[in-house]
């Protein structure tokens, strides 16, 4: 049985959906970050697969940049999280209601 591009894309989609569920479900900010990592990874899989099946390196390049962005996001995000935790002592998402419209 030959594994084609669509297999990878479906896998990527499933992983992305899992990430989305996590984003919607999590109330703990740290675990919310985990979910976003899953989202980014699922996209990376799709990039690599497309790159492979089209014989084009551009997909991989994008995957690199996604990883770089993920790393930056973690650095800054964790920093902000720590500041928030210092101020409130909680990292509960439901506590963050300062943006009430």
């Amino acid at each position: 049985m030959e594994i084609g591009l669509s297999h990878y894309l479906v896998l990527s989609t499933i992983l992305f959906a899992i990430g989305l569920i996590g984003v919607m479900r999590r109330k703990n900010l740290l675990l919310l970050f985990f979910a976003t990592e899953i989202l980014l990874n699922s996209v990376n899989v799709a990039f690599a697969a497309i790159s492979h099946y089209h014989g084009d390196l551009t997909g991989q390049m994008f995957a690199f940049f996604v990883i770089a962005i993920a790393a930056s996001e973690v650095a800054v995000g964790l920093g902000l999280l720590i500041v928030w935790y210092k101020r409130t002592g909680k990292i509960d998402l439901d506590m963050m209601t300062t943006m009430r419209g």
Partner: protein
Amino acid sequence: MFEAIAFYLFAILTISMFSIAVLTSQALYALTALAAGMIFISAFFFILGADFLGAVQIIVYTGAVLALYAFGMMFFDTTRDVVEKRTSPMLVFGMGGMAALLIVLIFAAPIVSDNITALYPVQEGVGNAQAVGMVLFTKYLVPFEVAAVMLLVAMIGGIILAGKKMDTSLTLLDEDKSPLSVETNEKAAS
């Protein structure tokens, strides 16, 4: 055949690991599952012949990012679990599933995938790391440098954000002077 077995094996493993990471209520389990999932993801990269990307995945994600998360978890009191109010799980899963279904539809229907042409084709007889290096340092040099600067900025930003008032120990402060106390927070807020 071997490829198919490897794909399905790692697919099942990744999906289950990530599901655990999303669904568990234990932060430690989630972190461990996430780390495992990341490594399994890198397996796909190896299968797809993107050796360099697989290596980077392991080093950056599993090595650096997850280590950061682990330190973060140590900083927070994760044993005191956040009580997660479960509001309408049907909606959450429904929308997630719906989005997945739609994306699959889009990829399955010949809307996008037909129109892709190779911009930078893989060169024959060249290793993946070498090929990546050639493209990255010619066509994508500027984005690469920008990404490097961005990482630097993120690093400094993270240090500054996390490192504020590091010299004062929160646990040794008096209760009323602590930045954790309610009054100080209100003052800070106002």
